């Protein structure tokens, strides 16, 4: 089976600093992959490169064989990549429903008329916000704001969903709800790349993980093996143990 998302030799340099160094991995359609690494290892930069918030200094990023590297964020969004943000970003002056309408109207499918509302509402219901559609996002609790951000990403009907620490900051019971929700999304065949620090969530959700350290790929494989890999252990714990 061919890869849905294929990264080859992707690098990003900021002046002298190499933030992402020749990253290379594939994700198959319907797969859910964890992207791990210590703070500052380049995970969010990589998410920004794939989604077009930044453009790579070199390398190719292909969706269904089409290279999107260096394209603008809106072109990449229309090519089927949706994302959430590390710090929640909602549209404060628009209702919950309007928030979800935006990608339905401007995403890959560019729906028109009443279809926009239908798609938006479908995805709000999917994340459990069906009865809060008319509220302002500022009135929502933190987890509901995260749900809204997820619904907004889903309303784009993406090929690939990039979740940047979507589960961070949730309390233990909310975390269980969050994990269940992502599992449910995956069961519908959605392809997901997930940046996450919470190991419990990674083990529960991702059969496979990719690990970065200092911008470089250091491991790629089944989650249990990857987490036992000495390089990975050193990358996560190195500083403390060396000291």
């Amino acid at each position, binding site marked *: 089976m061919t890869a849905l998302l294929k990264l080859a030799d992707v690098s990003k340099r900021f002046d002298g600093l190499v933030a992402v160094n020749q990253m290379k991995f594939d994700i198959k359609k319907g797969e859910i992959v964890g992207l791990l690494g210590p703070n500052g290892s380049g995970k969010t930069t990589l998410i920004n490169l794939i989604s077009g*918030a930044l453009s790579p200094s070199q390398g190719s990023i292909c969706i269904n064989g089409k290279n999107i590297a260096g394209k603008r964020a*809106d072109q990449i*969004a*229309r090519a089927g990549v949706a994302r959430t943000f590390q710090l929640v970003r909602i*549209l404060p002056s*628009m209702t919950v429903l309007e928030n979800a309408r935006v990608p339905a*109207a*401007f995403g890959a499918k560019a729906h028109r008329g009443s279809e926009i509302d239908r798609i938006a509402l479908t995805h709000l219901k999917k994340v459990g916000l069906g009865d809060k559609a008319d509220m302002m996002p500022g009135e929502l609790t933190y987890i509901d704001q995260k749900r809204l951000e997820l619904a907004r990403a889903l309303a784009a009907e993406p090929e690939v969903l990039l979740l940047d620490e979507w589960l961070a900051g949730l309390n233990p019971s909310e975390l269980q709800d969050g994990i269940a929700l992502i599992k449910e999304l995956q069961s519908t065949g959605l392809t997901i790349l997930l940046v996450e620090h919470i190991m419990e969530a990674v083990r529960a959700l991702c059969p496979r993980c990719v690990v970065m350290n200092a911008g470089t790929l250091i491991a790629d494989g089944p989650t249990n093996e990857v987490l036992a890999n000495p390089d990975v252990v050193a990358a996560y714990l190195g500083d403390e143990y060396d000291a």
Partner: protein
Amino acid sequence: MTRTVLFAIAILAGLAILALAPAFLGEYGLGFMVSLMSYVTLATAWAMFSGPTRYISLATVAFFGIGAYTVAVFNETLPYPFVLIVAISIGALLATFVGFATLRLAGVYFVIFSFGLAELVRQLITWFEVNITGTLGRYIFLPFETRHIYWQLLALAAVTIGIGFWIRQTRLGLALKVIGDDELVAAHSGIALARTKVLLFVLSASLMTLAGAIQSPRWVYIEPAIVFNPTISFLTVIMALLGGATRLWGPALGVIPLMILFEWLSASFPDHFSIFLGAMFILIVFLLPKGVLSAVETRLARLKREANA
């Protein structure tokens, strides 16, 4: 449905009353109304772009002046409607070019650039007139009385507010609202930022150009210092901000009190006018950052909450 009909009737009645104004007003009053309609157009057109994008443009007079100057150059050689078409084309062309070149600039750089643009256009025209054509001033001989100019500007103001209303119903309006809230989210939702912003900038600039073109016969004699007066740009910004740049009717509402105030100030304190202008600017930005309409709405919402509690 009945509300929409009533609203439409109210608008038409208002327009009809305004169109009858020349029958009741003297030359001074009508001159005031001409300026009023001109500023309603400028402030509404300004807010069309600057409201949602939050780019503060001081280029208003660049376009306004281009409109007026185009009429001055072509009024004796081309029929009037063609002159207006030429003016709009030049304004739109400049706006497209400037838009693509500058809308990537961050806010404060854009403000300075837009201010510089107006000065640049003025200096270029002055240089061209002095060195090439050898005539700095130009005359406009068009068979228009004040009331004719007033009617044209009234129509332009109505069309401008109409376009503002229409945009709010379209995908473009939704895209702008998202851009106003969060550009990053807008881009990642599939909205083409540069194209959307340039489109709005060009639309807004075209209306400003037309306002200058239509108003120009009032002056009869034109030179760059008159039609590229930067005070016009500043007044437009203050008026739009006073009323509220993100509301359809905000800029128009801001124009009326400030026009009356400035008319009185410039008559009573001609030498200190710019001091008052500056003071007003600071006061409005500090006291009513989102405009009067928004302030009133917030106050009403609070009263309602207190009444419910």
